């Protein structure tokens, strides 16, 4: 059963088409990931599904409600964790939850019980009376996830939920998200930049320039690549890239300081390569395809570059804020 149905969704800003008629469906109870570089249309799509932005054309149903026609019902059906923090840091954890519960019309008798539940779930029970301004980034994120669940939404949207967090916190947040799916059967719709996180998703859609370029389970996407990935460093990348292409008839991608290529059987290819280009190759590694490789293949870019941009942007924003912008 599909809980999110998107049909030829288009968003245009003047002449620029940010989302170019994408269609997909998300099943109830699955963890669905949106993967793609900045400006690919991920956040735009999420904002449209959350009724924060209107679409130019197309159709989208969420929990059976039309995003255009029944925005209040759609909003009641979803929980949201935004890329930027959206807590009131002058209120306590509990007050933030209370505020949310009232806005979402959680019955008074249930509200207290639910607040305790979600606080326990994200392990913030002991800090419930503390002001949010004294929380760490990871605690804020956890509180936001708790808040997003307070009204028992059908779909939880997580827009870059782990950005700017350390690896331990990221893992902890993932544990929570997966447990939610298992225990409450909630559908999780998320965007991420981190490949290892995308691995947790049941299915991922890779989106680039406003179009979905691949959509499947991570395992299937990797299997699509077929063979093994070979990464080579050489004394002269451009020259060797050309020669390898001609000699073996395979595509070679120049990715920063390395050359990447996809071959059917790494174990037999590497010795041939070493013999054919003796003295020009400084290192070789063979690995099974990762989502990085899938991304590289479908978009022609490495996601690491995007990741760096993102970190930089995040850092600058925080600096700007500290200056009291």
């Amino acid at each position: 059963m599909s809980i999110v149905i998107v049909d030829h969704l288009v968003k245009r800003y003047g002449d620029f088409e940010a989302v170019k008629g994408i269609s997909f469906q998300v099943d109830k109870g699955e963890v669905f990931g949106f993967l793609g570089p900045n400006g690919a249309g991920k956040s735009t799509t999420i904002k449209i599904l959350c009724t924060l932005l209107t679409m130019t054309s197309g159709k989208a149903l969420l929990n059976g409600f039309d995003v255009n026609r029944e925005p209040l019902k759609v909003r009641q059906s979803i929980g949201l964790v935004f890329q930027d923090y959206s807590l009131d840091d002058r209120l306590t954890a509990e007050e933030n939850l209370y505020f949310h519960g009232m806005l979402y019309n959680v019955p008074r008798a249930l509200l207290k019980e639910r607040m305790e539940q979600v606080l326990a779930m994200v392990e913030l029970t002991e800090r419930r009376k503390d002001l949010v301004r004294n929380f760490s980034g990871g605690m804020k994120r956890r509180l936001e996830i708790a808040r997003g669940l307070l009204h028992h939404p059908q779909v939880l949207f997580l827009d870059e939920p782990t950005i700017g967090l350390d690896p331990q916190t990221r893992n902890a947040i993932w544990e929570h998200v997966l447990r939610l799916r298992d225990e409450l059967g909630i559908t999780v719709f998320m965007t991420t930049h981190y490949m290892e996180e995308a691995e947790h998703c049941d299915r991922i859609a890779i989106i680039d320039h406003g179009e979905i370029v691949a959509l499947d389970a991570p395992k299937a996407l990797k299997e699509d690549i077929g063979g093994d990935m070979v990464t080579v460093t050489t004394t002269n990348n451009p020259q060797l890239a050309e020669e390898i292409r001609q000699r073996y008839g395979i595509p070679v991608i120049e990715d920063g300081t390395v050359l990447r290529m996809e071959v059917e059987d790494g174990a037999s290819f590497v010795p041939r390569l070493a013999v054919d280009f003796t003295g020009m190759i400084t290192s070789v590694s063979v690995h099974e395809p990762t989502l990085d490789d899938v991304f590289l293949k479908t978009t022609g870019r490495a996601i690491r570059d995007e990741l760096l941009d993102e970190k930089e942007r995040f850092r600058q924003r925080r600096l700007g804020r500290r200056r009291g912008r």
Partner: protein
Amino acid sequence: MLESVLKTIYVIWYRELIRFFREKSQWAGMIMQPTLYLTFVGTGIASAMTFRQAPGGAPVNYLTFIYPGIIGMSVLFTSMFSGISIIWDREFGFLKEILVAPVPRWAISVGKALGIGTIVSLQGMILLILSPLAGLSLTLWTGLKVLPICALVGFAIGLLGISIAGRMESMQGFQLISNFLTMPMFFLSGAMFPLHSAPQWLQVLMVIDPLTYGVDALRNAIYAGIPEAQAMLQHSIAYDLSIVSLFAIVTAATGMTAFNRQG
């Protein structure tokens, strides 16, 4: 639907109050500014000029005259600048939490304006302790009349602040526009000088200033039982409050749509 709207209005109002009570510096500023105006500006002007008094030569002290105006001023400034919290909320992301909630957006504006009205009516009450400085001794009954007047004026101007802040991106922009509105509203309200002695062209502007009626309503309440001060009044309290209510309807129309177009 109704339940959800009432809950929204309540919880937005509640948050406004929590935030206000936690910010101790706001309290200080709220009391300091009017005290300074009354003691320094009021006393200074009173002694620099002979106050030509009310028609019929009623013996009213200048400080007695400006005292209700100073309360009106505090209400005006506090309620207008409360709108800035919307820009803070936008900056710190909390506004998104409110905007994606399954509630009609006008209820958000109403809750906020009610919060502002509550805060300024408390402020008005507190400023009554300055009354001895103005040579007035007030009764509890006066205080109870000042409360709803401040609340109504605060609600109306609060909505004006919200309608500006809801449509502004930057702090500076908001400050510029709200100053541009509050300053003339204050100067022309009859808070500092009486309408009847002003030149004709100034009187015209004063008559169209909505705050004129708020200040006059406060004078009505505060001068009750002081026969010689009655000459300073322009209208009945009922007339004043009707005009302020009309003004509130106008600002509500703009304030309630402040969030409609955004995401």
